[in-house]
């Protein structure tokens, strides 16, 4: 770049982060990646569920030696000294952020929080309804400290209505929105598709969007505001076509496996097919390729790539209607062909013919993929805890004229206490020592926390 760099888009914006779980923690990550100073409040006496560690702060060796890597895979299968600083489900969501500890259940803690609100532009929370009220953190209280604050709350089902105090993970919201019955194998029972957390993704991105829209409005008018997100309502766009089909035509869609909802428009075949593998699914050595034919033209390209086998030359299959009516046989025959091929070789061969396809990539292979390497999506980082160097994800996108990317490795619990207390709040050394004794300042969870 020949020109000098410019500040990141949210440079100068301070976000006081009271959020938890993936939805809130990923939302503030997006704001941090765009340059906001995110100061995450933590408390040595309160374990926010599914926010830094799962299921307890003080993990045991037994808990870290079984289960899938994404869920329980700790460094060298040991919990180590401060597992909450590097748990694989959460660690990557702490880059570019600051962390400080404060016991906001104590009156003194709430008073200190108020001083931080005065220095902040945005306050975010997504706890179960009642949690903030109990602490005394209300819109009025925040506005008494900072009139133009942007305050966003994102409980599961919103602040009103019979479900306002329902406990839910993202996966439960998807149950209630119909997703659990809309995904999964065709004709199979519920429960056969694994719990996923699609609602957390869209909650996080749209919390970040809502905050930026409110900041835009504040910059134009001087007016702050209150934002209420029901994470359930917010997730509805992911299932828009099913809702539209019911609303327009009364059709109640069901799980289609990996087939396209646009099968009648020509998207057949659309599926995941086996490839040559060197071992068993039990060892994660099964190989799969995802293929989507989008129209008659790409169907012809697929037929040629397969070497014009007789079954595929049947005239009926040349049309969208014909393929839609024969998906079972197409899927079966295509799978018999793909299973003879290496997934990556087939990937490039199909793409060269203009067909949308890619390996369904098992996570241990991600870091070796040439695309992931070329785009530098995972980068070596060292954390405050001495666990060694590993690759952690970079932001989804870059602002090319700014120094963005990973500006700071994932932050440890309480790593920025000195910055927040001494630099932001101007606390003296003596007062800092007193606040440590009073339980506010810490770099590890109390032993009293499970």
């Amino acid at each position, binding site marked *: 770049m020949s020109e000098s760099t410019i500040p990141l888009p949210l440079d100068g914006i301070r976000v006081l982060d009271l959020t938890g779980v*993936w939805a809130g923690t990923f939302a503030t990550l997006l704001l941090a990646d765009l340059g906001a100073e995110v100061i995450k409040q933590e408390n040595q006496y309160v374990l926010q569920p599914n926010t830094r560690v799962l299921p307890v702060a003080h993990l045991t060796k037994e808990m*870290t030696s079984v289960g*899938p*890597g*994404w869920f*329980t*895979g700790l460094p060298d299968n040991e919990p180590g000294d401060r597992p909450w600083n590097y748990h694989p489900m959460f660690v990557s969501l702490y880059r570019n952020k600051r962390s400080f500890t404060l016991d906001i259940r104590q009156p003194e803690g709430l008073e200190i929080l108020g001083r931080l609100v005065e220095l902040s532009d945005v306050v975010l929370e997504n706890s179960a309804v009642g949690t903030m009220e109990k602490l005394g953190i209300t819109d009025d209280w925040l506005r008494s400290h900072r009139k133009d604050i942007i305050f966003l709350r994102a409980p599961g089902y*919103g602040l*009103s209505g*019979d479900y306002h105090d329902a*406990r*839910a993970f993202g996966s439960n919201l998807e*149950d*209630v*929105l*119909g*997703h659990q019955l809309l995904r999964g194998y065709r004709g199979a029972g*519920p429960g*056969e*598709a694994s719990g*996923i957390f*699609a609602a957390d993704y*869209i909650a996080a991105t*749209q919390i970040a*969007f*809502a905050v930026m*829209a*409110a900041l*835009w*409005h504040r910059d134009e008018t001087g007016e702050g*505001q209150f934002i209420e997100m*029901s994470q359930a309502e*917010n997730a*509805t*766009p*992911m299932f828009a*076509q099913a*809702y539209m*089909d019911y609303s*327009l035509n009364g059709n*109640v869609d069901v799980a289609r496996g990996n087939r*396209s909802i*646009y099968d009648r*428009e020509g998207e057949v075949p659309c599926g995941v097919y086996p490839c040559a593998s060197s071992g068993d*699914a*039990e060892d*994660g050595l099964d190989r799969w390729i995802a*293929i*989507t034919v989008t129209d008659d033209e790409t169907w012809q390209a697929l037929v040629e790539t397969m070497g014009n086998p007789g079954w595929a030359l049947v005239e009926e299959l040349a049309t969208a209607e014909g393929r839609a009516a024969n998906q079972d046989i197409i899927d079966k025959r295509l799978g018999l062909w793909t299973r003879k091929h290496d997934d990556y070789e087939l990937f490039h061969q199909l*793409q060269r013919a203009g067909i*949308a*396809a890619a390996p369904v*990539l098992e996570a*241990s292979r991600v870091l070796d993929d040439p*695309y*992931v390497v*070329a785009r530098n999506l995972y980068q070596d980082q060292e954390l405050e805890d001495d666990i060694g160097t*590993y690759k952690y994800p970079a932001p*989804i996108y870059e602002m090319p004229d*700014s120094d963005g990317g990973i500006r700071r490795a994932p932050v440890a619990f309480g790593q920025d206490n000195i910055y927040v207390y001494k630099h932001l709040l101007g606390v003296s050394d003596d007062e800092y020592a007193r606040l440590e004794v009073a339980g506010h300042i810490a770099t590890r969870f109390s032993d009293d926390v499970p």
Partner: protein
Amino acid sequence: MPDSLNTGPLNTGSLNNGPLNNGPLKNVTVLDLSEHIAGPYATKLFADYGANVIKVERPMGDPSRRLGPFKDDDSHPEKSGTFFYFNINKRSVVLDLKTGNGREGFWVLAKKAHVIVESFRPGVMDQLGLGWEEIHERYPALPLVSVSNFGQHGPYRDYQGSDLVLYGFGGEMFSTGMLHREPIKMYGTAALVQSGSALSTAIMGTLFASRNSQRGQHVDFSIADSHLVGVDRRHSAVVGFQYSGRKSLRAATTAPTGMLSGVFECADGWISIGAGGRRFMGVREFMDHPSWLDDPKWDNPSIQVDPDAIKEFHSHLLPWLRTKTKREVWEAGRRAKFICGPLYTVDEVFSDPVFQERGLWQEASTPEMGEFRFPGRPFLMSATPWEYRRPAPKLGEHTEEVLAEAGLSPESVEKITGKADVL
């Protein structure tokens, strides 16, 4: 503080087809060349919250006009449920960017825009003479956000994608489903909608940067990247493997995974319950204090992993659940502070009283599609609310209006729309 911003179904979104616009982005103009799902979903968020989104369509229209569900299954470009949902509150301008007149229209609109969004295959904007260097030279403060399958640079730049392909490659699909079956995707285009919502933050970012520094930037947004480093388990599986050497395998099962964990059958369907560990202690309240639960053995946490005890527990629980509807079980679960949720079918989502009472659904009506409801606001803003100002545009419905607003004379508008030729 506000108990809730929700104001019920009567005024969460009014059809406001005129100048009235209370959105936070009402002074922002987005020149939107994007097609299909991801790009249009991002710009829909802008339009829904007040931005002036000018959707530039090719003469044949955005290909998503040819995607269902269609009203009455009639595959008419103004009857597509997909196109409607992803394009409300926008205006449509038809420009043939392959012609000089079409490109002239583009530059006229670009002059008034605060950001351009496009989703052509990488390189196409350059071929059209509308590439980043040209844009940046003419309008240095104007940002461009390009959304593509595999990015503007990198070894897969020219590769094709789909919701399935991009999620299968980028997202944590491999570990979703049953071990001895194929990995399984999310519904429909959920992965592309997630990417579109992430894209909206990139567009907002360029707007702030451009406003603050008067410099436009070209952002390369890759849908694959938005899943490779997005939030749903992918980063966890990649980091967890590096740490522990353990892979993430498919592990779905039809059987409940614990005493009160898993998917359970009720009288009218299924409910998902997660009430292990300490949450299990709510079980007496959940089941309304049956006498068999008086036995203190159920208070011992270790009993929750004892296979014989699970069997005994289920011999009481499963028949009890089958006497209750999933909504009744959910209500009991909420009382007991269980993490749970009924597995709704799509019609049950529409008939749920709480979603209705909170005003989730927006009424709409068009001559082609009749009257119907669709999910309205994603979130509520106290000062600058979500609004339904206009239905999705007909193809080219606003070409003349928008070009005239941009300051073109009627003669120039006729030239750009090609109408001058037929005179």
